[in-house]
């Protein structure tokens, strides 16, 4: 259980986290989602006491992190890949961390095995790829078999197999009743991994809801219809409950009627359909809608996030 109350962090005149209050519950994977610079990492750093809040407070299992008698058994944190001296081997890095809590070498070997680092454990971290660095960070987080895990962008730099492994791992840890908080700016990853999502925008919590609800909030189901006689069809669909949006000459988006109903209607009117599909409100839509105006570094028109590029979410 992680509890943040009006957590605020300012660096000079810049506010990184602005009065964030939230609760991260055990037994769930909670995702911290937000664009770059939204305050996700700063929030995580404050949870483990690396950064001191300007005001507000955050506790883990009822106490500030630093007040726990066995911090590594309480919280395991991966805050960034390679918070490691590059001249030391992975094994010695973990051994030194473990020693602070009198955790034995057997456990060190165990987390090395679990994270698949056996073959490189004796090598110096200097030569590690980003993915290996992430695995080492996760190994360090698992050392104390902690009740709470905080993982900042854990899948960053991992190959597809590694991504799948992290996803399975965090699901499993949550299923064991642990508290899991992970951050990502990849909405698709969150949709697959998290149960609950906290969205950050410019340092503030702008949404805090279960994934299912979050997707529902974003957008009602839209049906995209392509037909050479699309204007005719649009007139037939007219009704107070239905919104029709013209996309181009032959395409409309319809909200408020199911695809089946539109199909039936078109058939009875003898209108040929060249395409019809349901576009569920995706997490991406919801996310972009929520963070519109909260994005700190916006790309110019040419490189803008593709808001029209709606995806079907197959969940």
């Amino acid at each position, binding site marked *: 259980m992680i509890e943040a109350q009006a957590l605020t962090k300012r660096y000079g005149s810049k506010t990184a986290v602005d009065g964030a209050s939230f609760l991260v519950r055990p037994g769930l994977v909670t995702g911290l989602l937000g664009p770059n610079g939204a305050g996700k990492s700063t929030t995580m*750093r404050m949870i*483990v*006491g*690396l*950064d*001191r809040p300007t005001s507000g407070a955050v506790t883990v299992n009822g106490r500030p*992190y*630093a007040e*726990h*008698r*066995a*911090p*590594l*058994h309480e919280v395991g*944190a991966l*805050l*960034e890949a*390679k*918070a*490691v*001296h*590059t*001249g*030391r*081997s992975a094994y*010695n*890095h973990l*051994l*030194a*961390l*473990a*020693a*602070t*809590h*009198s*955790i*034995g070498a*057997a*456990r060190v*070997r*165990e987390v090395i*095995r*679990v*994270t*698949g680092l056996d073959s490189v454990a004796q090598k110096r971290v200097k030569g590690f790829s980003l993915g290996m660095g992430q695995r080492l960070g996760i190994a*360090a987080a*698992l050392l*104390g*078999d902690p009740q709470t895990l905080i993982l900042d962008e854990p899948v960053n730099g991992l190959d597809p*197999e590694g991504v799948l*492994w992290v996803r*399975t*791992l965090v*699901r*499993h*840890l949550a299923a*064991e009743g642990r508290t899991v908080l992970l951050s990502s700016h990849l909405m698709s990853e969150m949709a697959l991994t998290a149960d609950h999502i906290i969205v950050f925008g410019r340092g503030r919590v702008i949404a805090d809801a279960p994934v299912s609800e979050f997707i529902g909030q974003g957008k009602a189901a839209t049906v995209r219809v392509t037909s050479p006689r699309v204007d005719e069809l649009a007139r037939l669909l007219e009704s107070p409950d239905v919104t029709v949006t013209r996309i181009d000459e032959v395409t409309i988006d319809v909200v408020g009627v199911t695809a089946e109903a539109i199909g039936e209607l078109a058939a009875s009117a003898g209108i040929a359909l060249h395409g019809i599909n349901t576009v569920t409100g995706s997490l991406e839509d919801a996310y972009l809608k929520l963070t519109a105006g909260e994005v700190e570094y916006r790309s110019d028109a040419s490189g803008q996030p593709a808001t029209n590029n709606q995806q079907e979410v197959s969940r």
Partner: protein
Amino acid sequence: MTRTAADTANRSSLEESVHGLTFAGILRSEWIKLRSLRSTVWSFSIMFVLQIGLGVLMAFTLPTSNDSASGMVNPFAMDDPMVVVTTVTAGLALGQLIIAVLGVLVISGEYSTGQIRSTFTAVPTRLPALWAKSIVFAVVTFVVSVLSMLLTFVVTLPILASRDISVSLLDEAVWPAIVGAAAYLSFLGVISLGLGAIIRSTAGGIASSLGLILVVPVILVVIPVTWVQDLANWLPSTAGGQLYRDLGVFEVWQAQLIMLGWVALFLGIAALLLKRRDA
């Protein structure tokens, strides 16, 4: 390499009795960190070899009995124990620079690599990590220094004997000097570690630590004001030097207090900043 997450549930190796964070554990952790870096091992090895090598060189420069017979005078005008002490501590001039650099690196290396965040996540109260680091580095420096000087003594024994100098290690002018010289290096190492923790950058830390040893004394001495020149006696490199050779300014216990004062000053500032700053 497809591991099932279920592996993590295997807690066999993690005993049910959790010890938690202890100072003994932190000391052990810092010892593992110190010995597992090639740079540390290399630096200590180089210091060890230099210490012995320079001692041997020094011994060979001493006049042989033949020279004395031919009327050449001992150029050092020292009694025998003093000659031995000078020989054994000959490497200190260079050894102190290695220790000063290493002292900075022990902590600045953690900042430059990001290791410090792992360290402070494991020891969120932070200060025990600073104390443990200082203690481990001071003790290792002391042991390596004493060993290298003892070995220098043994190696130079026959060379000195051929020059009719034979002094026991237990001579009351010899062993305290060896202990004092080793203590000097340990003090200096911890002062450098404090500087490294304050400045947090390797380049800046090394510059200020070497500056304190090499540059500041020179500057103070050339300023033609008596009290400023007197101040030079209080600097770590000069006051510390009195731990192993008598320069007639301070007693050994006074020099020890002055060095402790420097350690307290730099570690104190480092501790304050460590608590206050974000890692």
